[in-house]
């Protein structure tokens, strides 16, 4: 009799416990989380003191969380809000305070912040820190070159950074000639393509690869479009009014689709842009 009572109460408390755990889990997953960890809002020096002799592990942990967080957003095609980009930037800043020689966070920042959140200045600041500690790594200067060339449209400074990147041991040979070539080529788009090709070369993660590939594809389409616009101008001595002019004159079969869901359009200066601005538009 006693044993039965005991068993019964055991089962009851087990149910109560499971029920509570489920509720707590729901409560925690229901709310929108705008950041990877609340830690990113604390001053980095405070966090550094709090983690005692384990800043390296803390940096790894935060980095992993950041990657998972953004990975899920990419996978679910959810738009990242400006506040969330700000949190990401703070996160990278914190991680690189904890371990300034950790390369991954810089790369994450470079491949996302300037492109999707327009945080070029902030990214450059991070990269300068990287360049000062990662003396034997060419990437920080390469990234700085790209940001100045592509986003800030400042070829002078960009060239300086590319020269710095070129003299770092282990830097790709073509950097030396790239600076000169950059001036002859149509510019902007080409630098983006080179940048993305370099990034793709050293990415193993399939998700990130897809993400970069999509961007590269779009840039290649834009480059092709601009090339055809150039041909049109040569032929007709005037700029096409619409991209559909290219198809009408038989320069192209059709106008390719923007992988990001936007529409390509042409500016007065002959440059081609897209309404998506290389950020995934909500699919309807």
């Amino acid at each position, binding site marked *: 009799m006693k044993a039965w009572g005991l068993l019964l109460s055991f089962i009851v408390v087990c149910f109560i416990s499971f029920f509570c755990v489920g509720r707590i889990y729901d409560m925690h997953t229901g709310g929108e989380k705008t950041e990877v960890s609340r830690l990113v809002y604390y001053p980095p*020096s405070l966090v*550094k*003191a709090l983690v*005692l*002799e*384990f*800043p*390296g*592990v803390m*940096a*790894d942990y935060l*980095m*992993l969380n950041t*990657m998972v967080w953004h990975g899920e957003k990419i996978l679910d095609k959810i738009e990242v809000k400006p506040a969330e980009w700000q949190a990401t930037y703070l996160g990278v800043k914190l991680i690189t305070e904890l*371990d300034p*020689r*950790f*390369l*991954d966070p810089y*790369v994450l920042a470079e491949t996302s912040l300037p492109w999707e959140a327009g945080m070029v200045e902030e990214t450059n600041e991070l990269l300068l820190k990287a360049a000062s500690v990662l003396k034997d790594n060419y990437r920080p200067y390469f990234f700085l070159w790209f940001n100045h060339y592509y986003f800030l449209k400042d070829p002078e400074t960009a060239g300086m950074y590319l020269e710095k990147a070129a003299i770092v041991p282990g830097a790709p040979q073509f950097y030396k000639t790239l600076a000169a070539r950059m001036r002859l080529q149509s510019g902007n788009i080409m630098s983006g393509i080179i940048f993305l090709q370099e990034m793709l070369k*050293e*990415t*193993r*993660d399939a998700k*990130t690869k897809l993400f970069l590939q999509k961007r590269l594809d779009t840039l290649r389409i834009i480059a092709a479009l601009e090339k055809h616009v150039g041909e049109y101008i040569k032929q007709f001595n005037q700029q096409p009014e619409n991209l559909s002019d290219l198809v009408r004159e038989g320069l192209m079969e059709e106008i390719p689709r923007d992988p990001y869901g936007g529409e390509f359009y042409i500016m007065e200066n002959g440059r081609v842009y897209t309404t998506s601005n290389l950020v995934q538009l909500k699919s309807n």
Partner: protein
Amino acid sequence: MNTIWPIALITFKEGLRYRVLYGVVVFAVFFNVFAVLISGFFMRDILKITLDLCLSVVSAGGLLVPFFLAVNLLSGDIEQRTIYTILARPASRANYIIGKFIGLGLLAAMIVGVLTCFTLLAVWGSTQIYPEHFFTRLSVSSILMSSFIALLAILTLNSTVVLWCCVTTSSFLATLLTLATYVVGQTVEDLVHFVSAQLPGVDISPTVKKVIHVTLYIFPNLAAFDFKQQAAHGLAISFQEVSLVTVYGFAYVTAILIIAVLYFNKRDLP
């Protein structure tokens, strides 16, 4: 006749009987395997991630000695009167303190040694799984050096534990004081940097500055013994820095042990 070595040995032997030591080994194996696997999620710094985790396990495992074994083997010794067993032999109280310290040092050296071997094994396993070019920065000598200095840090902390166990009558209080020493030791250098930097808008009173500066000299500067990041990134650790830290450690330990002996000599052991 010298009694230090027998005391060290019996302390070591007793420490070996604590099951928690074997728990640490299991924990370390688990964690190192985890480190090797998790590092694959990262793009470039695979070696760094592995070493970050493994070397942290080395430090954390070593901390078991000051936080748990030392308090048990010293405060417990006094609380439970097992110290009579040792002092009934012709062992002076100074010999007792030094012998205990050496015994604890042997335990710490054993833990750090075993966990460092695990770290090297983890790195080796990692080289078998991931492409070779991730390991160009691997520097075994830096890893060994980092572990050696981590051991020095633990010895330094041990000396303060010995002092706390001598001046307090309860192991609980000794544990608390040890924890405080550890936290202060890890952060005080950063604090001094902070108060020394003339930050705009931050006004720190001169007395506070003085107190923090004095703290830096009184408490063990444990942050100075942290070379994990250098080892993880495969940077060479400068000989000058290592020797300076080593000399500092030895001097600090000696000073603290002298205070402990002086106090302990005066103390009743009812």
